[in-house]
C-alpha cells in the first residue's frame, strides 16, 4: 500500500463518498481504504516515517492514551439496554415456543372451543423475510404478516437493530460466539475472525436473491433458511423432544433412588418441566435428528467464526442489510485518533469493520455498540445523521454472482416441478394437515416454520424428507402411525402464519358451515393383514376409533369357519368350529383420512388399514369418487 503525499486519489468504484474535500486529514485510495494524510509537523511527536506497525497501511503507530479514554456513558447504558432487549426477546421466544402445544386447564370452560391462549406464531408476523417471500409468491400479505412493516421501519431508521437487539437466533449465536471460541492467543484469533471477510459475508445476499427468485417462480423454499423458522424447527422438533427423552430417563432413575431428597428433586424438576416446557407426552418426529444435527453444526460454527449464521447464511439479515443503507443512525470514525489496538474488533458482532483506517460496513453492522464501548481512544461514535464519507452502505456483492444465484433460484423451481414427484408420480403419503390449501398454493406459502408440527397435540404432523419432493423439504405431512389427527382439533390452522393452512373452525371442519367436509385423504384396508379378514380373529378397534358420525368404517357380520389352535386331547387333529366376526370396510365418501384407525390397528408393524392422500378435499384432481354421496 503506497503513500501518496498530499495527492488526492480519484474515488474508486467501491467508494461511496461524494469526494473528499481538500482540507480533510483523510484521503481515500482506489481500494476504498481510508488513509491519514501525514503531517510534516507531527503534533505529538510521532515519526511520520515510522511504519513498524502491523495492520492498516503506512500510517505510523500512535501511542495509546494513558489512562484510556472512557466511552460515553450513554453508549454504555445503551449497550446494557441492548443486552436486556436480547434477553427479553429470547425469553419471549422460548416462552411462546413452549406454549406451542395444547395445555389443557381445569378452569377452562368445557363448552368453549379449544384455542391457544397466546399468539405463539407472533415472531413470524414481524419477520420481513417471510413476509417478502410469501408476497413474491402470492402477491398478497397474509393477515398478521403486515406487522413486518414495523421491523422494516425500525431498520430504515436504526439499521440492523433487529439482528443485534431482537432476533432470538442472533442472541443465541451471540452467546455461543462469546462462549465457544478458544481462549488461546488472548483474542488474536477472535479479532482475525471478526474482520470483514467479504467473500463469505456475500453468501447470505446470494441466498436471499435465490430465495426471492424461487418465490417468484412459485416456491417459498427459502423459508428453510429463515432464522425464526430454523429455530422453531430445530428446537421444537428435535432439541426439545430429545431433552424430554433425557429427562424422562433421569426421572426413572431418581424415582427409584433410596435417598428421599433425590426422589423429591427428580419429581419436582419433572413436574415443572412437564407443565411448562414439554408437551404432554414424548413426541417423536420423522427424521427429526437431521434438524438437530444441522442446528448443532450451525451453532458449532460459532467457535470458528462468531455469529457465523448471521454473517454468512441468514437471508433475513441480508434483507435488513439491504434496507439499512437508508438508516438515519450510524457510525462515524475519527481515524486520526485510532491506535490500531483492535479492541473494537474483539467483540464486534457484525464483522463490519469498526476499526479506524477502513470504511464502516453499514449493511453488516448489527448495532451491538460493542465497538464504541470498547474503544479507548474516542475514535467511534454512533449518532443520528452521521457523515457517510467513510461508510459503505450497500452490500459488497459481485454482480455476476448475484445474477447467477438469482437465475439459479428462478430455474430450480421449474426444474423441480418438471420432475416426477410433482407430477403424476406424486407420493401417496404426502398427506397434508387439515385446512391446507391446494398443493400449488401450499408450496407458495409454506415457509417450513414448524409451528403446525410443534402445536399438533397428537404428534401427527411431521417434516417431510422425500415425501413432498425436494421442493417440499420440511413441509408438514401426516404420519398416522406416529399420531392421528384429532377430529375436533383446529390448532394447526390457528398457528400457520402464512396461510398454507387456512384458519378454520370446528364447524367448518365438519362441513357444517356450507363448505364441504375437510378430508385429508382416505383409509384403505389390507385384507391380508386385518385380523377378522385374514385370521378369523375378532377385532374392529378401527371402527371403534373412527371419529366420524356416521362412522366411515362399517362392519359386515359373518359367521365363518375357524380351526382350533390345539390338537384334541386324544391326539386328534384340531377341530373345526365357527366364529362370529365383524369384518370392517371403509366408506370413502365419509372417511376424512384422520388416521385414527391406522394408529390403533393392533397389527402395529404395518397396520392393516393405512391412510393415503387420495380423496383429499383440498384437491380437484387427487380424488377417487365421481360424486360425494349426498349426506344430511
Amino acid at each position, binding site marked *: 500500500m503506497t503513500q501518496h503525499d498530499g495527492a488526492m486519489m480519484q474515488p474508486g468504484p467501491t467508494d461511496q463518498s461524494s469526494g473528499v474535500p481538500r482540507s480533510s486529514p483523510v484521503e481515500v485510495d482506489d481500494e476504498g481504504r481510508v488513509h491519514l494524510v501525514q503531517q510534516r509537523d507531527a503534533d505529538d511527536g510521532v515519526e511520520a516515517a515510522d511504519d513498524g506497525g502491523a495492520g492498516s497501511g503506512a500510517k505510523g503507530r500512535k501511542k495509546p492514551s494513558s489512562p484510556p479514554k472512557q466511552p460515553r456513558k450513554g453508549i454504555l447504558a445503551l449497550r446494557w439496554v441492548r443486552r436486556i432487549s436480547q434477553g427479553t426477546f429470547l425469553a419471549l421466544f422460548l416462552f411462546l415456543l413452549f406454549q406451542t402445544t395444547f395445555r389443557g386447564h381445569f378452569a377452562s370452560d*368445557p363448552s368453549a372451543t379449544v384455542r391457544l391462549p397466546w399468539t405463539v406464531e407472533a415472531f413470524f408476523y414481524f419477520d420481513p423475510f417471510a413476509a417478502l417471500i410469501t408476497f413474491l409468491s402470492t402477491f398478497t400479505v397474509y393477515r398478521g404478516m403486515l406487522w413486518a412493516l414495523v421491523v422494516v421501519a425500525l431498520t430504515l431508521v436504526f439499521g440492523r437493530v433487529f439482528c443485534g437487539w431482537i432476533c432470538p437466533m442472533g442472541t443465541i449465536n451471540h452467546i455461543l460466539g462469546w462462549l465457544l471460541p478458544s481462549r488461546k492467543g488472548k483474542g488474536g484469533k477472535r479479532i482475525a475472525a471478526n474482520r470483514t471477510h467479504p467473500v463469505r459475508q456475500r453468501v447470505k445476499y446470494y441466498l436471499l436473491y435465490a430465495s426471492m427468485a424461487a418465490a417468484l417462480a412459485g416456491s417459498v423454499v427459502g423459508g428453510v433458511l429463515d432464522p425464526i423458522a430454523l429455530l422453531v424447527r430445530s428446537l421444537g422438533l428435535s432439541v426439545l423432544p430429545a431433552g424430554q427423552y433425557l429427562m424422562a430417563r433421569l426421572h426413572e432413575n431418581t424415582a427409584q433412588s433410596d435417598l428421599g431428597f433425590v426422589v423429591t428433586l427428580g419429581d419436582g424438576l419433572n413436574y415443572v418441566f412437564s407443565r411448562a416446557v414439554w408437551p404432554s407426552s414424548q413426541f417423536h418426529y420423522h427424521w427429526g435428528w437431521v434438524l438437530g444435527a444441522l442446528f448443532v453444526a450451525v451453532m458449532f460454527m460459532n467457535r470458528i467464526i462468531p455469529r457465523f449464521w448471521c454473517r454468512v447464511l441468514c437471508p433475513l439479515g441480508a434483507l435488513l442489510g439491504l434496507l439499512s443503507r437508508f438508516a438515519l443512525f450510524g457510525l462515524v470514525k475519527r481515524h486520526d485518533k485510532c491506535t490500531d489496538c483492535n479492541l473494537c474488533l474483539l467483540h464486534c458482532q457484525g464483522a463490519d469493520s469498526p476499526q479506524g483506517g477502513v470504511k464502516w460496513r453499514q449493511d453488516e453492522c448489527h448495532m451491538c455498540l460493542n465497538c464504541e464501548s470498547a474503544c479507548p481512544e474516542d475514535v467511534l461514535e454512533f449518532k443520528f445523521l452521521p457523515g457517510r464519507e467513510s461508510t459503505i452502505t450497500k452490500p459488497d456483492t459481485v454482480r455476476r454472482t448475484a445474477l447467477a444465484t438469482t437465475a439459479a433460484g428462478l430455474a430450480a423451481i421449474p426444474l423441480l416441478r418438471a420432475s416426477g414427484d410433482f407430477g403424476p408420480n406424486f407420493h401417496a403419503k404426502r398427506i397434508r394437515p387439515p385446512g391446507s390449501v391446494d398443493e400449488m398454493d401450499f408450496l407458495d406459502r409454506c415457509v417450513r416454520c414448524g409451528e403446525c408440527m410443534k402445536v399438533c397435540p397428537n404428534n401427527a404432523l411431521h417434516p417431510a424428507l422425500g415425501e413432498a419432493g425436494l421442493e417440499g423439504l420440511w413441509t408438514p405431512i401426516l404420519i398416522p402411525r406416529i399420531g392421528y389427527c384429532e377430529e375436533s382439533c383446529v390448532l394447526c390452522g390457528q398457528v400457520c402464519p402464512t396461510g398454507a393452512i387456512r384458519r378454520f373452525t370446528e364447524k367448518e371442519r365438519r362441513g357444517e358451515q356450507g363448505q364441504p367436509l375437510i378430508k385429508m385423504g382416505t383409509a384403505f384396508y389390507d385384507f391380508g393383514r386385518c385380523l377378522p379378514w385374514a385370521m378369523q380373529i375378532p377385532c374392529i378397534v378401527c371402527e371403534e376409533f373412527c371419529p366420524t358420525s356416521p362412522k366411515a368404517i362399517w362392519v359386515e357380520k359373518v359367521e365363518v369357519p375357524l380351526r382350533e389352535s390345539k390338537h384334541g386331547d386324544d391326539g386328534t387333529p384340531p377341530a373345526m368350529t365357527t366364529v362370529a366376526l365383524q369384518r370392517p370396510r371403509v366408506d370413502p365418501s365419509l372417511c376424512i383420512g384422520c388416521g385414527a384407525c391406522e394408529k390403533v390397528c393392533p397389527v402395529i408393524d404395518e397396520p392393516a388399514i393405512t391412510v393415503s392422500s387420495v380423496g383429499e378435499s383440498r384437491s380437484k384432481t387427487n380424488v377417487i369418487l365421481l360424486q360425494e354421496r349426498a349426506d344430511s
Partner: protein
Amino acid sequence: MVGGTGALAALSWDKEGLAAQQSAEGQRVIKDFRVPPRSDLPSMAVAKRGADPTALTRAAIDALGGMGRFIKKGDTVAIKPNIGWDRAPIHAANTNPEVVAAVVRAAYEAGAKHVVVTDFSCNEPQRSFQRSGIWKAAYDAGAEIVLPADHQFTTLRMRGVVLDEWPVLRPLVDSDKVINIPIAKHHSLAKFTGAMKNWYGLIGGRRNRLHQDIHTSIADLATFMRPTLTIIDGVRVLLRNGPQGGNVDDTKEMNTVIATVDEVAGDAYACELIGEKADRIDYIRQGHQRGIGTMDLRKIDIREV
C-alpha cells in the same frame, strides 16, 4: 487400576441375563376394595325421579345407605369416571360431569381425606379431560385430577384367563377406596359398555389387543378390580355408534342414575337403558359365572327412588 476394574466387574456381574430378573417383577396383586355386605341395606338403588343429575346421584347413594356406608373418615378415595373420548357432555361419550362432581362432594362429606379423579383416555388425555367437563367439575368439587402419564403406570399381574401382566394406573390402586362411575353406552363390538367395561381405563400398554377376546378380557378386568361402589350414569345415554358417538341424535335422555355394589347386576340393569338384554352380552354372563356378581335381577334387593 486393574484392581478397581476387577472389583467393578465383579460387583456388576450378571450371570443369568435379563430373564432371571424379570420373574421377580409384577408379583403384587391389588387389594379388594369392597366393604362388607349389609343385609339391611339394598345392593342396588335406581334413581329415576327428576332430571337433575346431582339430585339423582344423591338420591341413588342415599337409597343405598349413604356414602358413609362406603367411606370412612380419613380415607383416600380414587374415582374412575369414563373420560375416554374427546367429546362434549352432550355427546354422551363420557360420564356426566355433574354426576362425577356429586360423587366427589359426597365422598368429602363422608370424611374422605383426599379424592383423586383419573382415567386413561383413548383420545388425547388433556383434550378429553377438558372437553368432557370432568376436569373443571371435579376440580371445583375439590378433587385432585391426575392426568395419565408414563410414570403413573406400574406393571402388575392379573392372573386372568387372557390377561396377565399389564401396566396399571397407579393412583387407582394405591388408594383406600375405589368408586367406579361409568356411563351406559352402546359399543359396536361388545354391544354395551357400562361398569365392567369401564376398567379398560385402568390399564395401559397395548390395549388394542383386548378386542380379540373382548368379553373374556372384560371379565378378567372385573375380577381383578373389585371396587367399593359403582355409580352408573344413565342421565344421557348413547344408543348407537358407540363408544364414541359424535352425533347428538344418537343420544337419549333417560334421566337415571344407578348406585350398586354389584357390577354385574348394575350392567344387567343398565343395558336395558339402551335397549339391550343382559343375556345377549357375553361378559355379563361370564361375570355371573365367575361369581363376581349376579345377572339375575330378581335375586338382589333393588330400591327404586
